[in-house]
């Protein structure tokens, strides 16, 4: 196995020198398929929680063979079926908690394939901890249901499943106002937190003790994170209390004081620590070193392990995710800027690692760009850490200086970052700087960034930029950033106009006094105090570092992006900056996302945003598109993402001209949906003059490139013959093509053709089977979406109006409608009918049975948007049916010749003896023309019930016309 690992690593190292290709945005900006893993107590199996297709799946994995046995599977769209917690209770039992309930999976290993059986538990509460040395036993916080009283019990899964927990052992008394209980297996102590108003109090209960001991009350903002008990009076705690950096210290419970420093890094804050299981002090500490997570092993035995891991994994960054009880087996994860996460099963005794899983399943063939971390010393002798991600080949010569947000208490790391990888794969080099104010470098470093907007922070960035430029000599340089980074990007460009050739500011701030005056609540002293801690004193000097007040000094082209619902960097910030820059005739572009806050909440937003950023920089710097294996595909996707933003109401303003431009770019690179959309623009006369021939050409091109929607559209256009000459053979061919291309309605198109015998031999049985779902069970029918049934109804309508059935065939077809729609009769006669123009307030919905007709003698319709006309009819039958029996009529609106393609052929479900309306609303711009609107209403047997023509004329000419 070691050989395999070594081979795998060699492959990675050798291929990483290849040219990096543009990575499609959809591969980067998305959720990973893998969520988490846990190893069984004996180390023989792994639980793996993943997303596969539309499901969240909890699998049991045999690590050596990789064989997976699904234990639980939930639809990922069901929010209440998200697994919040899962834990091995013993080697055969797994605890699983979802949002509203929990239960246990009992795994049967007696057969060849392990099989899990799920049992939902009846007793309410939550797991405190499994008991490692006692199989089938666990500690549980049981909610008795009486006045929210909690009992802390030692119990079994079976007792919780049946709800029969009364005989369980009570192992501790609960705390009053206890909000959570946890268990420290090393010290076998119980831990808890109570809340009193806004104050949190921390407690622990050592083994054998009868009463809880309070060890901390949280009063201030000091970082304080207990790791575990060193002895019965001493906690190991990560804190920066009384010292500059977050360190691991001994905290004396009795005196409430900090004692020995157990570990302190000279440069970095600690991010985690573990204690030795045998109670012999610290096992390991974690921190971010040059943006890379490091684990330093303290105990001698652990140092040996670390050395073995380093050898096995060829020095990669790694972390141990989980360990078996005897520590012989582990799950190890490797990660880096160019490794989103790879998981291995590690056999410590034999020093063997087996690949288990990747965080993203389909990224293994993609070559990511690695990052280099380094330090620069400023003039005032402060070490500033920075990260440079530079493509090994295909660099476009552009350095993007990309400061992070915050600015206080945030930092950049050299971990995998989809934004950085997106840009690097397109040729950009990206520079991140952990300037003063960044976290992880101690309190003094963090505090030295406060009140330094546009000052020390940007000086730090510039010191790093100068060194990088000296070493690398980039041809172009732009600044880009989000939130504070957006502000910083603008300030850098102002301070160094000769260096920065473009600026991209995302969700940024530009007017610092506005931070204190953005809302009425922001004017309260308690709010302003918090703002001052970051920004500095609220005085006139803030204007000196607010680009809004000296926007005339911004020279390079600038792109502003923001969310209209941003309440952190208030949207007003971006809008007033845009206003001012436009007023000063600066070269500004902006894109404001509707309904978006301080960042996108759906990946589509990020894909669009970064596609636009790349396009903006290329346009401004006049850069060619990258070439390479995936370049066309990736840019086809980027351009269609940009185009969609202008049509789908994503940005604040729709812009079909720009949309058409980008759809054309995308189509030129082979994107079939873009070809279809261009066709639809010609079809609808949107942006281009209406041209059905060009529309058909684009639809055909799209269909040839595999777009099923284009094939289906063509099939319907040829079938209906309203805008092009009817060609049933062509229609059938395109229905077939749509089906081959897996169009969701393809089989309905084929069925329609078979009913009508158009382009194929008539086959009513085949048609009925598909159209009326005759071969489907009720369960299968329920699985179809509403949209599918609507398309069936549309097909039924079309066949009903356009068939050449003989009497027998018509009878058969109508019988299917009767059965399918549960009609009681179709033998109808007209009992009453009124027609005319409808009152405006009754415009919606189009067809209703609750209407009022304003003028019952008019067939002349005023030519204005919203004008509504039609008929209200009541049908009756000679059949012996119950009152208001369900029935159906068909009707047709034939529109004036110029817009005949929009004519409607429909059916209406109604009740015998109950009136119903069929109305037409002039809602579309193209409908505002003078002409004749003919309404025909018929029974399913083609008996004409009503036939009248309405005429639209300019309002001043409307006069009474005899019915």
């Amino acid at each position, binding site marked *: 196995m070691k050989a395999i690992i070594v081979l795998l690593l060699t492959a990675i190292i050798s291929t990483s020198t290849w040219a990096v290709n543009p990575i499609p945005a959809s591969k980067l900006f998305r959720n990973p398929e893998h969520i988490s893993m846990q190893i069984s107590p004996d180390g023989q199996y792994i639980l793996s929680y993943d997303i596969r297709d539309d499901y969240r799946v909890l699998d049991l994995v045999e690590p050596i063979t990789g064989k997976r046995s699904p234990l639980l599977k939930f639809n990922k769209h069901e929010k209440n079926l998200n697994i919040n917690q899962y834990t091995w209770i013993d080697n055969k039992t797994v605890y699983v908690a979802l949002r509203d309930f929990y239960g246990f999976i009992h795994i049967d290993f007696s057969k060849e394939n392990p099989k899990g059986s799920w049992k939902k538990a009846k007793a309410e509460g939550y797991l405190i901890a499994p008991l490692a040395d006692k199989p089938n036993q666990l500690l549980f916080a049981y909610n008795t249901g009486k006045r929210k009283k909690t009992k802390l019990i030692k119990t079994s899964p079976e007792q919780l499943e049946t709800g029969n927990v009364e005989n369980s052992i009570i192992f501790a008394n609960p705390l009053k106002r206890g909000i959570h209980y946890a268990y420290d297996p090393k010290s076998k102590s119980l831990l808890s937190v109570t809340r009193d108003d806004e104050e949190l109090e921390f407690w622990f209960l050592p083994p054998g003790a009868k009463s809880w001991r309070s060890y901390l009350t949280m009063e201030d903002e000091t970082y304080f994170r207990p790791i575990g008990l060193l002895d019965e009076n001493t906690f190991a705690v990560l804190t920066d209390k009384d010292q500059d950096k977050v360190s691991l210290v001994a905290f004396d419970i009795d005196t409430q004081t900090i004692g020995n420093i157990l570990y302190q890094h000279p440069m970095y804050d600690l991010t985690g620590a573990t204690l030795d299981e045998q109670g012999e002090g610290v096992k390991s500490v974690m921190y971010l070193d040059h943006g890379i997570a490091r684990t330093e092993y303290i105990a001698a035995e652990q140092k040996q392990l670390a050395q073995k891991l380093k050898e096995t994994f060829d020095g990669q960054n790694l972390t141990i995710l989980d360990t078996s009880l005897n520590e012989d087996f582990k799950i190890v994860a490797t990660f880096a800027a160019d490794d989103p996460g790879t998981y291995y099963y590690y056999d410590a005794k034999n020093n063997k690692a087996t690949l288990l899983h990747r965080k993203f399943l389909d990224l293994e063939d993609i070559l990511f760009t690695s990052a280099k971390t380094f330090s620069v010393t400023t003039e005032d002798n402060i070490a500033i850490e920075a990260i440079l991600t530079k493509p090994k080949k295909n660099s476009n010569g552009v350095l993007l200086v990309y400061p992070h947000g915050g600015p206080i208490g945030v930092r950049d790391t050299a971990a995998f970052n989809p934004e950085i990888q997106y840009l690097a794969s397109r040729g950009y080099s990206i520079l991140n700087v952990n300037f003063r104010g960044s976290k992880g470098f101690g309190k003094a470093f963090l505090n030295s960034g406060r009140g330094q907007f546009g000052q020390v922070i940007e000086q730090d960035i510039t010191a790093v930029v100068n060194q990088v430029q000296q070493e690398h000599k980039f041809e172009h340089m732009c600044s880009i950033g989000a939130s504070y980074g957006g502000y910083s990007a603008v300030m850098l460009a102002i301070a160094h106009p000769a260096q920065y050739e473009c600026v991209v500011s995302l969700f940024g701030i530009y007017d610092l006094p506005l931070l204190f005056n*953005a*809302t009425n*609540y922001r004017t309260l002293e*308690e709010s302003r105090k918090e703002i001052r801690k970051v920004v500095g004193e609220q005085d006139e000097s803030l204007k000196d570092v607010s680009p809004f007040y000296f926007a005339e000094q911004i020279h390079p082209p600038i792109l502003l992006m923001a969310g209209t619902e941003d309440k952190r960097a208030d949207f*007003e910030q971006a*809008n007033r900056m845009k206003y001012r820059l436009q*007023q000063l005739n600066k070269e500004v572009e902006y894109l404001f996302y509707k309904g978006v806050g301080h960042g996108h909440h759906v990946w589509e937003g990020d894909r669009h945003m970064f596609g636009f950023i790349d396009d903006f920089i290329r346009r401004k710097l006049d850069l060619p598109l990258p070439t390479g294996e995936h370049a066309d595909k990736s840019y086809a996707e980027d351009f269609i993402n940009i185009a969609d933003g202008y049509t789908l109401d994503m940005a604040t303003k729709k812009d079909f001209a720009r949309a058409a431009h980008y759809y054309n770019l995308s189509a030129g690179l082979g994107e079939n949906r873009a070809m279809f959309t261009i066709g639809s623009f010609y079809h609808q006369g949107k942006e281009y003059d209406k041209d059905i021939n060009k529309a058909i050409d684009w639809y055909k091109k799209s269909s040839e490139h595999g777009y099923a929607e284009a094939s289906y559209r063509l099939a319907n256009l040829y079938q209906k013959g309203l805008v092009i000459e009817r060609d049933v053979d062509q229609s059938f061919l395109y229905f077939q093509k749509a089906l081959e291309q897996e169009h969701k309605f393809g089989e309905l198109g084929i069925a329609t053709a078979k009913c009508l015998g158009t382009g194929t031999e008539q086959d009513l049985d085949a048609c009925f089977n598909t159209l009326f779902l005759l071969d489907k069970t009720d369960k299968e029918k329920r699985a179809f979406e509403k949209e599918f049934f609507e398309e069936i109804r549309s097909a039924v309508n079309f066949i009903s109006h356009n068939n050449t059935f003989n009497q027998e065939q018509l009878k058969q077809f109508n019988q299917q409608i009767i059965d399918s729609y549960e009609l009681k009769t179709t033998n109808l006669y007209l009992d009453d009918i009124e027609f005319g123009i409808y009152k405006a307030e009754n415009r919606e919905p189009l067809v209703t049975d609750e209407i009022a007709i304003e003028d019952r003698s008019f067939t002349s319709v005023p030519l204005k948007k919203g004008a509504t006309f039609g008929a209200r009819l009541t049908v009756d039958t000679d059949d012996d049916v119950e009152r208001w029996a369900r029935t159906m009529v068909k009707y047709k609106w034939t529109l004036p010749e110029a817009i005949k393609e929009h004519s409607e052929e429909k059916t209406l479900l109604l009740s015998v003896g109950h009136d119903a309306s069929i109305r037409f609303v002039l809602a579309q711009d193209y409908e505002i023309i003078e002409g004749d609107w003919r309404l025909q209403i018929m029974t399913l047997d083609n008996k004409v019930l009503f036939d009248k023509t309405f005429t639209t004329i300019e309002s001043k000419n409307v006069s009474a016309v005899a019915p």
Partner: protein
Amino acid sequence: MDYFRRLILIALAILTASCASNVTSIKEDIDNKLEVDEGYLLIAVDTSISLNKIWISGEKDIWLTADDLRSGTNYILINLPEGEYQIHKIKLNNWFSIVGFEDDLWNFKVEKGVISYVGHLDVQTSGWWSRRHRVELMNKSSLALEFLQDDFSTILANRKLTYHGPGEDEFFDIVLNNNEKGDL
């Protein structure tokens, strides 16, 4: 900190009726509305549901009415006597209102002869009968200015636009040449 708890939802039945008069936004861009001691008030109401009324008390008590309070953003330009005003009550419907606008967070001034923009009143509630709601007065001066430039360019050309919303703001002074305008 949850400031929004200060506002409460109550049933209207326990309140006495007010004698405030209904007002609707000026529709036409003609600068002929102001009496000698009056100024224009520009307020916007961003609301997640259509509201019934908003009571503004002060120099003159007025109700903003449903036509100006539809779901979305509503800009309301009205002429009012100069003086101090306060958001007093938001009627969600005939039965429920949001009240509790006691402190000066909800106060604003209307200045004589000018357009006083006092903010965007942001009303977010999950429904007419919901007890969960959030009300905030926000400074969106640039959006207000763009609205006036689009819809009331004549009045804007005649009158100084002044910020009288939360806190202080120099946006209008920087982007507009306010000094040349004033009382007519």
